[in-house]
């Protein structure tokens, strides 16, 4: 790298990236916080709406048969197509990015939770009821543990999708946050800073996923 094999304008040597990391971090932390708040708001929205929707769709066969094709179709459509419209209505800034995070994250949540709920063995419920379990007991002792793994998986997947949605909205129509910053540095040919910002976001995302996976294992032991 140093010896001019690659053009340093486009691919900076790691030493330059490390140096850039120093001065980028100070500038990046508030931006990162900004992006994170949007991501978390969208994430909470997506999980809060998506998990109940998935539970309903998964536990009612007719609702599943009627609505699931639409959910899958919406999941398959590239969400970036409607981002400009969201930006048009909600303006450039916070709500657009948060909503975008929610829109990106909600469909995988619904699909995963619905699939997990549908796979609950109905015999377990029958057995519990025949042994005299009340509705509340069936819910707490049978259904909850059976559904929980798919909910946790959905929560892990949703995290990446929410961050993706927030970053994408910032790149497309933002004036703050990490996505905006990265896009600006790319257009300004500031490769070391861009690489540093990319590294920061990647590490953040990987740690979030690792944390949720750790949580998943803890819950697994609890069951």
């Amino acid at each position, binding site marked *: 790298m140093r010896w001019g094999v690659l053009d340093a304008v*486009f*691919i900076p040597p790691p030493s330059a990236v490390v140096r850039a990391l120093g001065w980028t971090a100070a500038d990046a932390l508030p931006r990162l916080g900004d992006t994170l708040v949007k991501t978390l708001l969208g994430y909470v929205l997506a999980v809060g709406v998506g998990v109940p929707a998935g539970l309903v769709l998964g536990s009612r066969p*007719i609702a599943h*048969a*009627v*609505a699931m*094709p*639409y959910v899958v*179709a919406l999941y*398959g*459509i*590239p969400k*970036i*197509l*409607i*981002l*400009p*419209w969201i930006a*048009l*209505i909600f303006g450039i800034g916070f709500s657009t990015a948060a909503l975008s995070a929610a829109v990106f994250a909600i469909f995988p949540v619904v699909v995963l939770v619905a699939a997990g709920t549908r796979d609950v063995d109905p015999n377990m419920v029958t057995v519990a009821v025949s042994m005299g379990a009340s509705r509340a007991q069936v819910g707490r002792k049978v259904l909850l543990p059976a559904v929980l793994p798919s909910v946790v998986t959905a929560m892990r997947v949703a995290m*990446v*999708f929410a*961050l*993706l949605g927030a*970053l*994408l909205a910032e*790149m*497309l129509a933002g004036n703050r946050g990490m*996505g905006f910053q*990265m*896009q600006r*540095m*790319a*257009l300004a*040919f500031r*490769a070391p800073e*861009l*690489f540093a910002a*990319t590294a920061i*976001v*990647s590490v953040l*995302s*990987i740690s979030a*996923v*690792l944390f949720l996976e750790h949580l998943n294992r803890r819950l697994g032991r609890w069951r």
Partner: protein
Amino acid sequence: MKIWLWRALVLLAALVLWEAAARMLNPILYVGPSRLPAALGRVLATRDLPPLADHVWLTLAEIAAAYALAVAGGLWVGFLLGLRKTLGRIYEPLLAALYAVPSVVWYPSLMLFFGLGPASKIAFGVLLGFFPVTLAVLAGIRQVPATLITVAESMGAGSWTVFRKVMLPAMASTMVGGLRTGLALSVVGVLVGELLGARAGLGYVINYAYGLMMTAEYAALVVLVAAAVLLLDGAGSLFEARGKRGGG
């Protein structure tokens, strides 16, 4: 039959709600379905937009190039990591970690390397399509029952025969699923790239309409592209179903 009726009703209700909401709200921002056909006509007549056909072809060519490269790279890396166990143990966690990063993080860097032309869109399409193909190959290889390979080898099959007659059929269904996901993501990658900054292509036209506040045309284009994507994915699912039957 009844299910189909309910599905049609849900769709109809959604359209009616959409139309009603759009009529009540600002017509510049909210476009009801009733205004879409006319807007679609305007888009196709290309009076106020760049000629559509060239942009569609460019986007299709970008998708084809991205998908071809993603499949080639994905199969190669997948088989390399899956069949060389040591390499697999070293690099698979890395692959999984990269998968946990929102892909759009890489786009600005790709834009920096490849510029605003088609190359950066193809590169992003490759990047997105590459992962599901690679991961599907790896999952498929793990799925092949070891006893089958042992039996085939003990009967004197060479490694190529084992690969072709035992491994490929056993992993076909998983691999076809990965190929389908890869196609969907390659399409997304190219579209995202075009929307984030391009001088040509479908995403550029969508951005152009949106930039000029031609909301009806923008909505018509979005519906058109979304329908095309769903159609492509539907074709992919037919292919997947055939692959699953063939693979047994």
